[in-house]
C-alpha cells in the first residue's frame, strides 16, 4: 500500500502536482520561446512587469538562471498559512489545491524566502488533520461529504484505512480463511450489469 502514497518517477500524482500553475514574472528578458512572446506582448503596453501563470516544472527551469520571480500560490501564502495553523480541520483542502501536500513539498524545495515556513505548515497540517481523517475512515458509514474535503494523499490514506477496517471487521465476525470472489471480477460484473440496464 505504501507504493501508492510515495511519489516516484512514474507517479501520476507527482506529475499532476508539478503541473499546478504559479503566478510569476520575469526579471530578465527571455528570447526564442514562442508561446511566451505572445503572452507577454499583449500586456506590455500598459504594465511594467506583466504577471503570467506557468506550471511548476517550467518555473524550475527558469530558476536555474534566476530569471524569474514568484510568490507562493494562494494555498500557501501568509493568510492561508495562518488559517491552517489556527485550525487545519475546517479547511476544504481539495478545493484549495488538489495535490496540497505534494505540490507544497515541491514548492518548499525551491529557493524562496518562505520555503521554510511552508514546510513547517505542511507537516503541522498533516499531523493536525490525520487524526480526523482516521476517525472518519473508521467510524462513519456515509463519508462522502467528509471524503470530498480531503487532498489526494489523504484520500489514499483514507481508502486504505477503510479497507483495513473492513478486513478487521470481517475477521472478527467471520474468522479468517474465507475464500471470496476476486474484487476485480465483482466490479467487472457490476459494470456489465449496469451497462445492460442502460441499454434496455
Amino acid at each position, binding site marked *: 500500500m505504501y507504493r501508492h502514497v510515495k511519489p516516484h*518517477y*512514474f*507517479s*501520476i500524482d507527482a*506529475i*499532476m502536482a508539478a*503541473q499546478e500553475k504559479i503566478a510569476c514574472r520575469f526579471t*530578465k528578458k*527571455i*528570447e*526564442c*520561446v514562442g*508561446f511566451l512572446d505572445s503572452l507577454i506582448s499583449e500586456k506590455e503596453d500598459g504594465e511594467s512587469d506583466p504577471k503570467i501563470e506557468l*506550471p511548476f*516544472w*517550467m518555473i*524550475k*527551469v*527558469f530558476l*536555474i*538562471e534566476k*530569471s524569474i520571480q514568484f510568490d507562493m500560490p494562494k494555498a500557501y501564502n501568509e493568510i492561508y498559512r495562518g488559517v491552517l495553523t489556527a485550525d487545519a480541520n475546517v479547511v476544504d483542502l481539495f478545493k484549495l489545491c488538489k495535490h496540497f501536500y505534494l505540490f507544497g513539498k515541491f514548492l518548499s524545495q525551491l529557493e524562496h524566502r518562505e520555503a521554510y515556513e511552508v514546510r513547517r505548515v505542511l507537516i503541522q497540517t498533516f499531523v493536525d488533520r490525520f487524526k480526523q481523517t482516521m476517525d472518519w475512515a473508521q467510524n462513519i458509514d456515509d463519508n462522502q461529504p467528509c471524503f470530498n474535503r480531503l487532498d489526494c494523499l489523504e484520500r489514499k490514506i483514507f481508502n486504505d484505512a477503510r479497507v483495513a477496517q473492513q478486513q478487521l471487521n470481517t475477521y472478527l465476525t*467471520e474468522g*479468517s*480463511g*474465507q*475464500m*471470496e*470472489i*476476486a*474484487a*476485480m*471480477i*465483482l*466490479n*467487472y*460484473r457490476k*459494470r456489465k450489469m449496469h451497462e445492460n440496464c442502460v441499454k434496455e
Partner: protein
Amino acid sequence: MYCDKVIELLKELERSREDTIPPYNNDGINQVLSEMKTLDTEIIDIVRKNEKGNWPTNAIRLRRAAIERNKRCLMTYIWTRLQRLKEMRWEIGAILPSDVRQNLSQSEIEWFNNYCKSLVSYMKTIGSDTGLNLIEDTKPPKSLYTEVRSLVDAGKLELESGEVLILRKNSQYMLSRSQAEPLIRQGVLEQVKH
C-alpha cells in the same frame, strides 16, 4: 503551451477506475511524439542561428525540460497501464474478457502473453516436482476440503480423481480446496459460511 497533450492523456487514465483499462490512445501518443520531434528540431535551429557563447540558454533549457517531461509522462502512461494489466493477470487469470482485450494495443497484448509465459515457467521451477501454483492459497488454508454452493449452472467439472461432477445452481458440494479456489475467485462458486 508545451506538454498539454500528454497531460490530457494522463488525465484520461486518472479519470478511469483503477481496475479498468481505457482504450489505448494511439493518436494522442503520436501527437506527443511529434511534439517532441518539433522541440528537438527547434533546439537545433536555435543553436545553429546563434553564435557560440551567445545562446539563449533559457529557451534551450525549457525545450529540453519539455522533452524530458513528455518522455516521463508517456512512460508513465504505459507503465500505469501495464501495472493494471499485471494486476488483472493475478485477479482474473490468463484469459482476459474480450472488452478488456479490445482496449489494449498490439504490444500490450504481446507483453501480457510474455508475462503469462514467464509466470508459468517460474512457477514450474519452484516447489516440488510439479511446481508451485502461486495463485492458489492466497489466504492461509484451514482444511483440505471445503463446502461450496454453485451460483450458476456451470455444467461439467472434472475432479482430480477423474469423476465428473455436474454443477447446478444452488446445490452444495464438498470439493478439494485447490479445485474450488479458482472457481470461487471467478464467481462460479461461493464458499458456504458456517
